[in-house]
């Protein structure tokens, strides 16, 4: 659709933060949030994602949904790097409260074109304190 490809007025770049708070299945919020991120990537804005509360489950590795009859959309997170979405902040306390560690999450990377296409990790595990300052630094926060 043509309206999904245009840039902001005067080429303005804002800091967009998508906050993911819900588990990947059980409600549609996580899937539809990812759809916004993928469409939004066409707008050349400064994009970050935050994963807090049950949202951290969205990034767990080895998701298997055959038995619930719902599509496993987690592979789409691996494509984010190709859309220049390279900053995925995951809250450490949310992981810990759910018995998860970084090793339970997918290995998401992006290729740095300014650095000989070096593969770099997209996931940044940050403390609740650090997450506060990341969030307060944004222009537009969309919470799902």
């Amino acid at each position, binding site marked *: 659709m043509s309206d999904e490809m245009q840039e*902001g007025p005067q080429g303005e770049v*804002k800091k967009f933060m998508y906050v993911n708070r819900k588990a990947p299945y059980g409600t549609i*919020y996580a899937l*539809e949030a990812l*759809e*916004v991120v993928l*469409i939004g990537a066409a707008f050349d804005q400064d994009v970050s994602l935050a994963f807090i509360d049950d949202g951290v489950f969205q990034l767990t590795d080895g998701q298997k949904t055959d038995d619930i009859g719902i599509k496993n959309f987690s592979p789409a997170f691996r494509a984010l790097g190709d859309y220049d979405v390279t900053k995925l902040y995951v809250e450490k306390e949310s992981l810990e409260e759910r018995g998860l560690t970084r090793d339970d999450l997918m290995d998401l990377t992006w290729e740095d074109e300014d650095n000989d296409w070096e593969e770099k990790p997209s996931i940044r595990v940050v403390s609740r304190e650090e997450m506060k300052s990341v969030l307060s630094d944004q222009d*537009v*926060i*969309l919470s799902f």
Partner: protein
Amino acid sequence: MKFAIVVNEGPYTHQASDTAFQFAKSVLAKGHEIVRVFFYHDGVNNGTKLAVPPQDDRHIPNNWSALAKENELDLVLCIAAAQRRGILDEKEAGRQGKDSNNVIDGFRISGLGQLIEAGIQADRTVTFGD
């Protein structure tokens, strides 16, 4: 100030749409501008013309529709979210081979790009949801 408003829940089950509506009215009353109200997730159900709530209750879709007419608001239903939930305007119903449509006057269907664009244009983006 320019506001973008995002409504992520349907009418009646959640208060989000009511609160967003009151917020929109207040914003306009204070002389601010609303660049767009974007309805996403179950929020697209606020745009149905087939809702028939009890007469002693507020009519949420009609209220939005009237507010849009009075203030020339841009109320946008996300097309992807609307298609999933059976919310179709006349054009979309024709395109999908459906024999009926149900979008109330004052709303239009468009893409998610309209949400991002609103976020860019507005000074504040305010989300109403769970």
